[in-house]
């Protein structure tokens, strides 16, 4: 990369003896060759799920929030749980693209495109829930500061409003970031696809990119800045999401440790989800050379680290609860572990704290199957984390008289399942029609991309 971005020296980020052309071919061929059968099957299933979700949403809006299992103490349950869960997953993408970029982690190039796409679709799923969880969705535009004949404005003291701004910004910025990264590769596609129509389409979105250095210069700058902006953003978004709870007064919600704890959790689940998707698609598309076992190991290390952070947060919560000498706080945490929701709590602990410990062992870190299984286990665990926080705190708060137990209805469940339809539909379309790896960036980290490589013979090729 240009003067201000020298990557941390890391040999053989790309396995196999690839040159520029072969890489181009490897990746740009995917959208060009015949659509494989499995894709149609997967796409069909996703569409069915999507249809289910839409049906549930219509049913909800037609009848009212009552079709969910909510009750008087428990005003939020699966809706907000799913929201936080999806947003959390949405964190990996921008994190990989932005933070790893700033830290010059060359290996990110193999997976960032992929992870960013996942981010955008995950955030779309997340955004759905705050929108449909309101009682009168037809008035939801009131949360935007629009001038109106009532002369009323939203309440900027409300964490929920902060959330709206944060998530909206996050979605927008992630999308811009993703698109900027795509432009040179769209140009590559434009120059390789055969069909007239495809040429027109790719050409249009490539915006006439030439690959001229005068363009590269501004491009690099823009990418830098966006990365610089996205980094605090990605940290702030889940911080603000955690404010929804931390700013409240409910024991189990009103916790200062939430921001870092939520961010760690988000990265944790995000990486897990990236792994899940990556392990599948690298196999299906034979990209083992680009998304190598080294990548998987590196990500497993991050999962291990964040997993430990999350575990630490869990224990810290208990300590602070005891240390605060605040009886309601104490009760709520003991109650989580022993009370009516103990089953959920221990599921969470097993999945989030115990499971990642496998990754202390290098053999496990590099074991694809195990990684795949654990990545799924972790996402289950992280869903339960949010469930435990949201529901168990509300179910047994200050006044014992108003305690109540939450039981989901089929609408709760199907709506959640349905969001996978939404997510996968978009993701499959992405895999099918867009270069799923940042071609230009991969080329940039090849040894032969560095002029020095040619100066002193073959020496740099293998050192």
């Amino acid at each position: 990369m240009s003067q201000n971005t020298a990557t941390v020296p890391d040999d053989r980020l790309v396995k196999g003896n690839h040159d520029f052309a072969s890489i181009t071919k490897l990746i740009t061929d995917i959208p060009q060759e015949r659509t494989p059968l499995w894709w149609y099957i997967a796409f069909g299933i996703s569409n069915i799920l999507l249809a289910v979700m839409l049906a549930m949403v219509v049913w909800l809006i037609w009848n009212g929030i009552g079709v969910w299992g909510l009750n008087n103490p428990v005003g939020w349950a699966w809706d907000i749980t799913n929201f936080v869960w999806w947003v959390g997953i949405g964190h990996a993408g921008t994190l990989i693209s932005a933070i790893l970029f700033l830290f010059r982690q060359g290996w990110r190039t193999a997976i960032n495109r992929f992870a960013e796409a996942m981010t955008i679709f995950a955030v779309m799923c997340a955004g759905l829930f705050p929108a449909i969880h309101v009682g009168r969705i037809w008035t939801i535009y009131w949360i935007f500061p629009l001038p109106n004949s009532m002369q009323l404005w939203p309440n900027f003291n409300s964490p929920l409003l902060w959330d709206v701004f944060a998530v909206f910004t996050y979605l927008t910025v992630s999308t811009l970031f993703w698109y900027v990264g795509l432009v040179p590769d769209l140009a590559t596609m434009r120059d390789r696809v055969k069909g007239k129509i495809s040429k027109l389409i790719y050409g249009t979105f490539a915006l006439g990119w030439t690959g001229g250095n005068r363009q590269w210069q501004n491009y690099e700058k823009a990418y830098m800045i966006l990365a610089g902006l996205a980094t605090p953003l990605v940290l702030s978004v889940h911080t603000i999401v955690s404010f929804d709870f931390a700013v409240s007064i409910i024991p189990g919600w009103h916790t200062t440790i939430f921001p870092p704890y939520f961010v760690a959790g988000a990265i944790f689940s995000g990486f897990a989800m990236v792994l899940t998707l990556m392990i599948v698609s690298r196999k299906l598309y034979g990209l083992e050379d680009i998304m190598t076992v080294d990548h998987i190991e590196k990500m497993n290390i991050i999962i291990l680290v964040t997993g430990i952070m999350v575990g630490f947060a869990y224990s810290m919560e208990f300590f602070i609860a005891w240390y605060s000498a605040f009886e309601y706080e104490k009760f709520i945490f003991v109650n989580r572990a022993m009370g009516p929701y103990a089953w959920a709590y221990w599921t969470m602990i097993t999945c989030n704290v115990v499971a990642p410990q496998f990754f202390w062992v290098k053999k496990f870190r590099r074991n694809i199957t195990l990684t795949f299984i654990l990545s799924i286990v972790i996402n289950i665990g992280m869903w339960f984390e949010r469930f435990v926080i949201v529901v168990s705190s509300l179910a047994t708060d200050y006044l014992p008289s108003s305690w109540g137990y939450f039981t989901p209805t089929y609408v709760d469940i199907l709506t959640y399942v349905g969001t996978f339809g939404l997510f996968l539909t978009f993701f499959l379309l992405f895999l099918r029609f867009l270069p799923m790896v940042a071609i230009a960036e991969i080329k940039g980290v090849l040894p032969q991309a560095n002029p020095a490589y040619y100066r002193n013979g073959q020496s740099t090729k293998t050192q």
Partner: protein
Amino acid sequence: MGKEQQQTYWRSLNELAQNEEYRKFVEREFPENATELTDGVSRRNFLQIMGASIALAGLAACRKPVQKILPYTRQPEHIVPGIPLYYASAVPFRGNLSGVVVETHEGRPTKIEGNDLHPGSNGKSNIRQQAAILDLYDQDRSRKVLRNGSDSTWEDFTAFCREHFADTGRRVAFLSEAHSSPTLERLRQSALNRFPNARWVTCEPFSEESVLNGTAMAFGRRLRPSYHFDKASVTLSLDDDFLQDSDNDVAHIGAFAQSRALASPDEEPSRLYAAESTYSLTGSNADHRLRIKSSEIPLFTFALAAHLSGEVSGLEAYAGYRNTFSDHSWISVLAEELMRNRGSSIITAGPEHDAPVHATVAAINHALGNTGQTVEYLDVPYTATADQNEAFAGLVREMGEGQIDTLVMIGTNPVYTAPADLDFQTALEQVPESLHLSLHYDETSRQSSWHVNRAHFLETWGDGHSFTGVRSVIQPLIQPLFNGKSETEFLNAVLSGEDAAGHQLVRETWQELLDGPFERGWNEVLHDGLQRGSRYNAVSVSLAGSFSAEAAGFLEAAEEPGGDSVELVVRPDPRMHDGRFANNGWLQELPDPMTKVTWDNVALMSPNTAERFGIPPTRRFGDPNQMVVRLRTASGDEAEIAAWVLPGHADNSITLHAGYGRQKVGRVADQVGVNVFPLRRSVSRLYCTAADVSATGRSYVIACTQDHHSLEGRPHVQDADLDHYRENPTFAQDAVYVPGIYGDREHPVSLFDDKQWPDHQPQWGMAIDLNACIGCGVCTIACQAENNIPVIGKREVRRGREMHWIRTDRYFRGDERGNPQVMHQPVPCMHCENAPCEQVCPVAATTHSDDGLNQMTYNRCIGTRYCANNCPYKVRRFNFFNYSKEYLTTGDDPEIIQMAMNPDVTVRFRGVMEKCTYCVQRISRAKIDTKNETGDTVKPSDGTVKTACQQACPANAITFGDLTDEKSIVSIQKSKDRNYLMLEELNVRPRTSYLAKIRNPNRQLSEPS
């Protein structure tokens, strides 16, 4: 049973408002009352159904919907549209009236309040009176006269009467509910004169007959004991729930609360002992409670009398008598206590207990010199001279033998309520002609040859006396919605075959009753709601000579029930009574004060008894399923009903509430609960012993509004023994350690400069005295009536979505297997100054008003429920479905229920949050009136603004007013040392504070077991 039936208050949502019949019907019934009433759109508009309906909105999109205004043609005097009018009337119950004032809006009665002038109510009311409005607008009331089940008319009926009763030799039997109406009495006499072979029997499933028999035994006259709890320093309740199951409960509660009132530590509150089987509301307010089986109550009573016989004269009859309770620790202690408080003590016994108990109680009271002090014996001319329960049994026998050829039933529902062993139904089949007057086409109407639809008391003229004999006229507020007839009109038709108006009948009677110029007296009575100075005479009594003989007899007969044989106790339901209120959604949805169960009756039993029959002694949190038990009496009658563990219930005793399991009566009543009258005998009606209990293994879903009944040691409800209070008067305030601001409550640590309320006058606040509150729940109903709170049905309540703005939390404390204490705590919105709900609302739908109210703006709410989540008191209520629309637009003619709505309160739409507003509509009215009168201030004088709950509360537990005026009652209450804030440590600064409860236990009596 078995599976949960969904309780459909509303059959289908499609039966929507605009039906043409009602249009006509309104114009026919009350053309004088037409303002904005007679066309769909504007009526809904006027009823303030928020945001109209989606349909209307759609319409508005294309064209402005045309809305009509329909002015009066001839405007009645006094009526100014938009200003409610108040009329004095009276509510009859079991033959006794309580004076009320009825609020009407453009001719629609919308709210009932107590009548300040009436000694029976002192401006207060109970749940039955509050809920009476809903009975008036009950769509399921019978609307026509029926002859053998097929449509007929009132004219046909009168014609029939003329023809049928022409033969005065007929063996006519009149079966009437209890009454105290001079007019009805007049007609009764003429009836008995007209038909020499006629007989008149009073039929009340739960009556004061055995009380009267008791006094007859003791004093030789059937007299009604009237207790003055305010004068008593010691009260002993023998299985008597006098705070709830009484015709004089409002007065009782007031007096009782007064006797317990504590302005400062050095005052001496009264003390209440309760010996009972079930855990009654009265028991929950007792300082000492003894849980014994109802079948042991007589023994306990006799033992007490025996013990006292040594110390006072008048109880010689009991001298030397001994039974298992003679050595009970309570007996000696009670005896000592009662001796210490001669003349200022009261002993009462449950009205359903047999005569000997009441006789003994009367004897003890008399011997202790309470007669004339705390107990009065009233001579009630409207009670029969003979035992009506026996008379009823006799009548049924004769009916069965075919000796009765015409049965005239004025009210009452014996087919449903009569004791099983009498088998009234088959007896009724032997009667050729049976005439039945009733509000609903009920079980008895179905078996009768004539059914006449009865008018609600708010629709017709009537009269009667209060429990203590204050005479009132029942004045109608609206023309009969369904052309019903009053009992007087009915009986008059039977006698004369003529259709006389109740108005004229009542006036005729009162010609005799009023001295001085009639019209003036009459108007005075109508205006005041009572005839001043009228009351039953208290007679001086002395022990009857025959007493000792009788006593010897029943002492002889008193047998000891086997220790572990199970007794079934059938009591009137606190809400349904004998089932006559079963079609009232407000009462069905009001949680039972002790169990918090709604929409069902259950078999109450102690944890030990439950375990004995294989029922888990504690419920799993959040699990609505209850085990169903099969109960079989010795005589083989059966009922299957869900078991409910009530800590503190006597072991080997099962309490059942009557009034449920009614069939084909109305949308609300049908299929709710189980009918337990079949388990009842005609002799010793209260309980039957040696019952057989077995678990069926089936389970049944119960909708209970309080899942968790322990306080978990939290300091929300502050109470203390009198001694402790005297040592540390501010114990309640000191109970909570308030982090950071301890010892400096005025200036809590805060990120912001402290906003000092009040910066504007007035500032509203409320204080709730837990020492006065007995937990009856009338505040909930009063609030529901005032604030248009919908009934949501069993399924929604079971899901924990109850809508009540003020709830009464009930906590048990202590040994659940033994005799735990109970605490009642009414919880409305606290109107926190630093309200946590406000800051989290993204659209500022809940904010603070200048006068310190926590406002909920429904029409701004988008329904995130974040505020409810963040409310530490969980007082916010969410419209999960379109409850109001279902409640107000379903049924045959929804407009009827719509007429019950308060036009000053917005009806909430689906998806919005709602909560207690401190009755802001009343506040605004008062502020505006004050401003209009004074021209400058918006500060109403103290007491002008009363919240609905405050106005109804018979115990005066709730005070409300302006905090900027340190002379206001609420300020004075809040300045008391017992005053404390719930969850003060959160620094949300609730405007609603509580006054701690003080218990007054007897040191000699160790912890009650």
